[in-house]
């Protein structure tokens, strides 16, 4: 019985591979359609404002945010992140030694597709790779140290337009498409996809929250969420989104999470980094 089921699962993977091969992937066409969808639906929102998520959708929420922005709640994380960034590892090297431009003003280039390893590398993963290469323990992907460090790095990139590249490599296209598939796939007992909220219902409420548009949704990360009473990374947001729809989350920075970040970041190309952000 179990053997028959394993065979069925194996066959379904094969079918999926064939289906992938049959689908023409056209990121540029997707990009244009995605952008047009949001700009047409929200003609009064200026293109760059989409990176402000719910604040681009709700005037009252925006007013409160502008007030708080004089002393943003992520300020402590940015300060801590700067200190961490400038502190050398035990072997004397620094984060600057791992990254282009000494790690300053580079957030807008992540994630990228690493043709050597054949996978998507996010900024958070790159940080832990840097730490491993220098004999340091990796950070937890969800909050605290990782959030503080990426808050500082995002801050140094504020205003820079996203510049995500898909190299001419079928594996990169496959990662892009897997990310697109993840985004539109319904999951969890509540049967929501990311698109259910962020494509079909931006600007509307889910309980007390105003939903952000998918366009530019990666731009403000990491964020200080009042709900969390602290900072959180992309991983924290993706895993908590999953549990909120009653889907068991994947491991932080799972291949699928990195793929969906790749897809969404590509869709935001040209839009400015607005991170670190503050959200309700």
């Amino acid at each position, binding site marked *: 019985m*179990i053997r028959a*089921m394993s065979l069925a*699962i194996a066959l*379904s993977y094969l*079918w*999926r591979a064939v*289906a992938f091969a049959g*689908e023409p992937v056209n990121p540029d*066409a*997707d990009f244009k*359609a*995605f952008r047009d*969808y949001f700009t047409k639906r929200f003609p009064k929102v200026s293109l760059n404002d989409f990176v402000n998520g719910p604040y681009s959708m709700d005037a009252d929420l925006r007013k409160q945010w502008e007030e708080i922005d004089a002393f943003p709640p992520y300020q402590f994380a940015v300060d801590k992140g700067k200190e961490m960034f400038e502190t050398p590892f035990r072997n004397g090297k620094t984060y600057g030694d791992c990254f282009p431009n000494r790690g300053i003003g580079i957030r807008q280039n992540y994630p990228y597709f690493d043709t050597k390893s054949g996978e998507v590398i996010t900024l958070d993963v790159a940080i832990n790779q840097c730490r491993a290469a220098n004999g340091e323990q990796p950070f937890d992907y969800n909050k605290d140290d990782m959030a503080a460090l990426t808050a500082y790095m995002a801050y140094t990139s504020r205003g820079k337009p996203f510049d995500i590249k898909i190299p001419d490599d079928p594996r990169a296209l496959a990662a892009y498409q897997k990310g*697109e*598939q993840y985004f*539109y*796939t*319904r*999951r*969890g*007992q509540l*049967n929501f*996809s990311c*698109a259910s909220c962020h*494509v079909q219902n931006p600007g509307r409420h889910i309980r007390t929250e105003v939903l952000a548009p998918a366009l530019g949704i990666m731009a403000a990360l990491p964020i200080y969420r009042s709900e969390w009473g602290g900072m959180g990374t992309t991983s924290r947001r993706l895993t908590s989104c999953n*549990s909120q729809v*009653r*889907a*068991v989350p*994947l491991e932080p920075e799972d291949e*699928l999470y990195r793929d969906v970040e790749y897809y969404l970041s590509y869709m935001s190309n040209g839009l400015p980094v607005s991170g670190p952000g503050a959200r309700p």
Partner: protein
Amino acid sequence: MRKLLPLVALLFSAGLSSPAWSAPADDYQAAYAKAEVAIRQADALKNQWTTTLSELAAAKKAADAGDFDAAVAHARQAEALANASIAQAKEQESAWTKAVIR
């Protein structure tokens, strides 16, 4: 005592190694095992529901407390939820393309 021994041996060989009043525990074991199979499949499809796992945990908790009727009910619910998540994953394999902004 010597006369009972062959009788006991007979009972064992007939497969009646457990008395009739522990059947609910067997039902629970069977239901739990079935649920686990479905859960493993859902895991393979990377589509597990949080409620599936909490039902399974509730089944074990009830069984540990001796309430096998409740344990069986929870285990069967866990299996049903796991199957539903498997059906969702399979359906979404093709359904997702219809949702894409084109």
